[in-house]
């Protein structure tokens, strides 16, 4: 039962990833693209965690925490860049 649920959950998260990629391509301003990038990082962490629950590969959790850290740093760096440009 759990394998089936993990498959459904990873599929839903992949659909969410595709939708946020659409906003990343579409976004009229740079801020929309930053929001989409942040959401993509969080969704990637979610996919890794859900597939860990299915497969039992616990080494993947290090990659998940690393992606969370890098996603936050990337968001702050993009915001800092926009602030510098706006001046």
């Amino acid at each position: 039962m759990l394998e089936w649920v993990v498959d459904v959950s990873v599929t839903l998260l992949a659909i969410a990833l595709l939708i946020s990629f659409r906003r990343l391509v579409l976004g009229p301003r740079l801020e929309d693209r930053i929001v989409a990038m942040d959401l993509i990082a969080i969704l990637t962490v979610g996919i890794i965690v859900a597939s860990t629950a299915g497969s039992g590969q616990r080494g993947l959790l290090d990659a998940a925490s690393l992606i969370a850290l890098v996603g936050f740093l990337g968001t702050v760096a993009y915001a800092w860049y926009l602030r510098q440009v706006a001046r």
Partner: protein
Amino acid sequence: MTAVLEGLTALLLLLGSILALLAAVGVLRFPDTFSRMQASSKASTLGLACLLAGTALQFPEVAVIVRLLSIAAFIMLTAPLSAHIVARVALHRGTPLWTGTVVNEYDLKACLPRQERKEQP
């Protein structure tokens, strides 16, 4: 006991992925940068917390649970922070609000740094 834990894990995984999907739909469908940011930061934080809790029920080991808890704490600390930073930059750059916005209580001069505020009285 194992069956109960498995059912709880399944429930939490489904709930978390549905919340993450709703966050993505909100980011696609909302009309405004600020409302998109709200959908992204709130719904995805709750969805990821559900996913992490559901995974933690499957591993009865301290190392895995501590890692999952640290990811959850980090996401819950940084998601509002990054939303705040991006909203401040968007407001400063003059990102347009939705045309149906009823009230805008924010004074743009208040978000400038202090020396620039003195230059523009």
